């Protein structure tokens, strides 16, 4: 039996086969990675999922695609519901992580105040945002995670504003651990999950989650696309400890972001301002490098 088959047949598997996720969805890979990390750490979890594709994934009552206890919450409430669940877990000395699994709409937009408050209280939960840069579940509307230039059903000519820097917002809460994840870099992904699982308090993980349906890209391109995003500096993968110290996990190598845009039909080759994107990547990398040099993370990798 292969390792993958073992995960899919075990009762402790997180994402069961037969779910309705689209092909090439980054969430499917992310959940599988999370399931592996939990098994490696000999941990279980309760998933707390707001309105998003992730709760559609569960399927219809009375069956579920999740191999762990799961709560569907209202759109803005997952960190608050998770606070209640984690509180009762801790009062009863029970095992298991309480993990919010939320899209960018629930994280960057409608749930931001709830998330900020849970971070400020340093709730003992893990919050994972699978960021597909779009309201995917409702058919592809802009969110504040949508990058500049992307066409959505509510920005038919391309979004004017840039992507919100949610990582800086979360780091500013000085939470114990914040990190970005890419399914193109699974070893780094697994390491960060392991770090999150062994850390107490509020942990925030941001997963760049390709959405072929919304990005108008080919499902088999998903991993290549997010690899380009890391290499170009569009979506750098890094860690922030206590909001104070930084480590860049995979150094961007100067890859031109043009190919990233070209391979997704949400971007119009004739309209997209690639020069502006290049400048933004360069600024983003320079700022992160400066932070990582001035405030280096002491934790060993």
């Amino acid at each position, binding site marked *: 039996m292969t390792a993958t088959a073992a995960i899919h047949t075990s009762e402790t598997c997180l994402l069961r086969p037969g779910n309705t996720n689209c092909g090439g969805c980054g969430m499917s890979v992310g959940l599988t990675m999370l399931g592996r990390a939990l098994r490696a750490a000999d941990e279980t979890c309760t998933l707390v999922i707001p309105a998003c594709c992730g709760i559609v994934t569960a399927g219809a009552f009375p069956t579920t695609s*999740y191999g*762990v206890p*799961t709560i569907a*919450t209202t759109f803005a409430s997952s960190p608050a519901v998770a606070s209640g669940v984690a509180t009762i877990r801790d009062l009863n000395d029970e095992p298991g992580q309480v993990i919010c699994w939320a899209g960018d709409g629930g994280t960057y937009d409608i749930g931001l105040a709830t998330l900020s408050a849970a971070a400020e209280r340093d709730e003992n939960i893990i919050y994972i945002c699978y960021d597909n840069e779009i309201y995917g579940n409702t058919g592809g509307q802009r969110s504040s995670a949508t990058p500049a230039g992307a066409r959505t059903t509510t920005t038919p000519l391309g979004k004017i504003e840039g992507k919100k820097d949610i990582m800086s917002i979360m780091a500013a809460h000085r939470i114990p651990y914040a990190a970005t994840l890419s399914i193109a870099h699974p070893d780094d992904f697994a390491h960060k999950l392991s770090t999150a699982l062994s850390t107490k308090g509020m942990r925030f993980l941001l997963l760049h989650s390709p959405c072929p349906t919304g990005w108008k890209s080919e499902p088999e391109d998903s991993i290549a696309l997010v690899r380009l995003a890391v290499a170009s500096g569009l979506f750098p993968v890094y860690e922030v400890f206590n909001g104070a110290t930084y480590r860049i996990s995979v150094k961007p190598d100067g890859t031109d972001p043009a190919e990233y845009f070209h391979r997704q039909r949400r971007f119009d080759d004739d309209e997209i301002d690639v020069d502006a994107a290049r400048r933004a990547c360069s600024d983003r990398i320079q700022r992160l490098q400066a932070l990582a040099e001035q405030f280096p993370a002491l934790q060993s990798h």
Partner: protein
Amino acid sequence: MPLQVVTGNHAAGYALSVAGEANRTARGVACGIYPITPQTEIVEYVARFPFSKGRVVPVESEHSAMAVSMGASMSGARSFTASSSNGLAYMAENIMVAGYYRLPIVMVAVNRTLGPPWNIWADQGDTLMLRDFAWLQFYCETNQEVLDTTLLAFKLAEDPRILLPALTCMDAFIVSHTQTETELPEQADVDRYLPNLDLPHRLHYDEARTLGGLAWPHEGLSMRLELEEAMKRVPEVYQECRESFNDVFGRDPGDMIQTFATDDAELILITSGTIATTVREVVRQRRNAGEKVGLVKLKMFRPFPGAALRDACKSAARVAVLDRNYAAGAGGIFCQDTRSAFQGHRNDVLIQNYLTGLCGGDVTPEVIDDILSDLRSRSAAGDPMWMGIDSGEETLQ
């Protein structure tokens, strides 16, 4: 039992706290709290209570307060919160979800006018806005009734035949901020009254169940029917909870509907909350003068006690419903449900609606006199009567 002079808010905070503490040998207690005038003292009381096994989470909004309470409740803990007015409106989405999740959360609401215009005084529009959200609703008249009903609400809500959340309501300031003598029960008695909570559908960390995912129409329909059946069991279970309350605390927490001088009454005034106190006094005076007048106080609004209400009004030809609330375009909300309760059972009763005390206005004995005069003079029911509207002259003075 210690008799103390406390406010309605203090009584509510005390009841929530000792009820939570009573679950300390089970899965404990947790809740989210958020302040809003005039209920703030309730959550302040809860925040400083030394729970043996509990946590009070001061959150950033009413919406999250109910969310934290839901997370705790889904995990099998006892949970509660308190709110008021626009806070309830902001919380509304999660209030509805708690009902449909069948979570036995108890919330104390201080009835305050919804703004705008901004106004902190008594009006029931805030909780009645939530009337279709699968919560039990109780409207209380005194500090003691607030305390007793809150304790009873936990027992009723957590009963395996019910499993629905419950709202205990009181009028802003008239109850919430007025100090009266109130019996505050000992923790040991509360422990006897409220057994450890054992929520059958709570989450277990080793069971892979999804709470609240998609359900197809036929499944959803079955769940709604189960909920309605639970609502129908409330009157019977309420009486059991009332009797056991009397056994433990030596006091009657009061019936779902409470009557005064209704046996042979030709005119009956139906109302709720503190307006009932004033009506009772007027009815007493009129009875002394030989008039066949009676009072029905609706304590329980959800489920609506239609059968009990019809029974209480069986001698009456004319009924006035005094509403301290108003549904725009439809009139008073207690009156709408009263009419529905009579429809098809008795069509010979004149049911007239009086909107009174809205936006915190005083409902004086003179207002009740005016209502009785109007009711007596009618040959048919008409549009809701707006009581207490100032004339232009008075406004100019």
